[in-house]
C-alpha cells in the first residue's frame, strides 16, 4: 500500500510528497563555526514510516531537536499539518501532535511505570493547580487514563512491571516504556530517536512490530536509526543526511544502492553494514 503512495515520488533530495504532514524549508543550525544542520527542503509523507539515516555527526538528532522545538535554528521554517512551527516550544509541539522520544531514554526513574504512563495523557483536569487538590474533580478522568495506560502496557508487554520504578527497568524496557508513554499523548506523528540503540536482540523484533503497529493505527512515524536491518524491514521511505544536509531520498532498496549514500558512509566509517551488497 505504502509503496503506491511513493510511486510517483522521484528519488531526489527534497522531493515533493503527495500528502506531507511535515514540511521543512532551509532549516539551518550552526554551533560556533560548525554547521550542524542545513536542510534545503524535506517533506514527510503522512501515515508512513520514514527513516532518517546518516553517519555519526550528520545532524540527525539536531534536526530532531529543531523540529520538536528543543533547539532553535538560525534560520528556517517548517510546518506541521500546514501550521507553522517556528518558535513553538517543545510542549506545544507535543500538544499539536508531534511527540518525540530520546536517544538516551528518559524514563522517570523514581516514578512507577504506571505513573510514567499516566503522565503522558493530555488535558488532565488534575494537572491544573485549582482543581488538583480536589480529588473528586479528577478521579473519573484518572480512572479512564489508567485504563488506557494499562491497555498500552499490556500491548507493549510491560504490564508485569506496572508498579516498578522506572529506574529499575532494563534498557530495552525503557525504550518500550518511552514509546508507550509517547502514545499516551495520542500523537499524530511519533518521532523516535534511535529506538533500537541498546536494545537486546530478543526485544528488537517486538519493538519493530510496535513501530509497524503505529502506522497501522494511522500515525506517522519518523525515526533516526543506525541499524540498517531495521530500516530495511520497516521503513517505507528513507531520508539520508550527511554533514547536516540531505543527500538522498528514496525507498530503502534505492537508498542502499545510491552512490552518494555509500560514499557518505564509507567516508565516515567503512565498516557500516548497509544491508545490501552493492
Amino acid at each position, binding site marked *: 500500500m505504502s509503496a503506491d503512495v511513493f510511486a510517483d515520488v522521484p528519488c531526489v533530495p527534497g522531493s515533493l510528497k503527495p500528502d506531507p504532514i511535515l514540511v521543512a524549508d532551509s532549516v539551518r543550525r550552526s554551533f560556533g563555526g560548525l554547521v550542524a544542520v542545513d536542510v534545503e527542503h524535506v517533506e514527510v509523507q503522512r501515515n508512513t514510516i520514514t527513516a532518517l539515516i546518516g553517519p555519526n555527526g550528520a545532524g540527525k538528532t539536531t534536526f530532531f531537536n529543531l523540529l520538536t522545538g528543543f533547539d532553535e535554528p538560525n534560520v528556517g521554517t517548517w510546518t506541521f499539518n500546514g501550521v507553522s512551527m517556528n518558535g513553538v516550544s*517543545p*510542549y506545544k509541539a507535543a500538544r499539536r501532535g508531534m511527540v518525540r522520544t530520546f536517544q538516551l531514554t*528518559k524514563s522517570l526513574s523514581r516514578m512507577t511505570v504506571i*505513573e510514567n504512563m499516566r*503522565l*503522558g495523557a493530555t488535558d488532565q483536569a488534575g494537572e*491544573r*493547580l485549582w482543581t488538583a487538590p480536589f480529588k473528586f474533580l479528577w478521579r473519573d478522568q484518572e480512572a479512564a487514563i489508567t485504563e488506557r495506560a494499562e491497555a498500552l502496557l499490556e500491548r507493549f508487554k510491560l504490564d508485569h512491571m506496572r508498579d516498578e520504578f522506572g529506574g529499575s527497568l532494563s534498557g530495552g524496557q525503557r525504550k518500550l516504556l518511552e514509546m508507550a508513554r*509517547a502514545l499516551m499523548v495520542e500523537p499524530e506523528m511519533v518521532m523516535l530517536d534511535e529506538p533500537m540503540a541498546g536494545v537486546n536482540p530478543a526485544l528488537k523484533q517486538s519493538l519493530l512490530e510496535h513501530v509497524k503497529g503505529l502506522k497501522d493505527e494511522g500515525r506517522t512515524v519518523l525515526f533516526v536509526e543506525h541499524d540498517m536491518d531495521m530500516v530495511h524491514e520497516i521503513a517505507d521511505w528513507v531520508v539520508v543526511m550527511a554533514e547536516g544536509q540531505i543527500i538522498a531520498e528514496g525507498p530503502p532498496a534505492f537508498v542502499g544502492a545510491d552512490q552518494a549514500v555509500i560514499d557518505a558512509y564509507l567516508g565516515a566509517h567503512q565498516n557500516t553494514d548497509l544491508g545490501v551488497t552493492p
Partner: protein
Amino acid sequence: MSQTLSNGLFGAIGVVAIAYCLAAIGLNVHFGYTGLLNFGQAGFALVGGYAVAMPVMNWQWSIWATIPVVIVASSVFALLLGIPTLRLRSDYLAIVTIAAAEILRLLVSTPNLKNVTGSTDGINSFTNDIQNSIPGFLKGRTVPLWEKNISDYEMWVMMLGWFLVALFSVVVWALMRSPWGRVLRSIREDEDAARSLGKNVFAYKMTSLVLGGVIGGFGGAILVIGQRNASPGSFQTQFTFLTYAIVVLGGVGKVKGPIVGAMMFWFLITVTDSLLADWTDGSGFQLPTWIMDSSNFSFFRWILVGGGLALLVIFRPQGIFGDKKEQAFDVR
C-alpha cells in the same frame, strides 16, 4: 538532665522550629518535589517577615491585614527570581536565589533605609494585635511544659504556627497526590521528558516556586512574630542551609519530612547547646578548655549541623526514617 530534655522538647515545638518547619515545607515543594535548587529560602522568609512588620510599623496597619501582603510579596519575589532563571540550567537558579536573598538582606540592613526597615536593629513593637488577640483561656497564664514555662504570647503564636504547618501540609499533600504533583515529580526526574509529553514545564516550575515561596514567607512571618522583632540577622544564608538540613533529615519529597525534620533538628540543637553549656560552665563535668569553653561552645552547633548535613546526604539521602529502597534524591 530533665532541664536539658525539657529545653529540647521546647526547642522541637517552639516558634523557631515552627518557622523553620514552614520554610522547609516550602523548600520541600521546590527541591523535594520539583527539583528546583532554591538556595534563597532565607530571602522568601525575609520577605514574609518584613511584609508583616513594615506595614504595621510604617503605616499602622492591623497585623491581620498583612496576611495578603505576605502572599503577594513572596509571590512577586518568586516571579522576579523565576523569570530570569527557570529556563536556565539548575545551578543558575541556585546562584541567583542565594544572591537575591543576600540582596534583600543587605537592603534591609542599610542605615539609609533605617526609618523604613530599622536597619540592623530591625523593627520591634508590631505585635500588639497578636498580644491583644490572645484568647481568654490563655490570657495571663503560663503553660508549663515539663520544667519550662511558656508565656501566653508564645503559646498563642505556637498555636497559630502549628495551625499554619497543618494547613500547608494538607495543601501540599493534596497537591502532591494529584496529577499536578505528578507533573512536578516528572520535572524533578527529567524536565525534557515532561516537555516532550506536552507539559508546560516553565509554568509548573514557576507555580512551584511561588507556592513554596509563599509558604516560606509565612515561615518568616511566624519567626518575626515569635521573636517580636524583624531584623536581617534572622535571615542570613545560614537560614537556607539549616532549612536544607531539615528537609534532608526528615526525608526529601515527603509531606511529613519537614515536620519530622524540624522537630528532630531543633530538639538535637537545643539539647546539644544545653549540654555543652552545662559542660563548660565551670562546675560539674567539664570539657577540656582546649576543646571548648564557655566563650566558644555555641559555635559547635553549626559544626554539628554542617557535618550532619554532609553525612546525611552521603550516607542516608533518604533521610533518617526513609526507606533504604528509595534512591538518592538526585539520579542524574
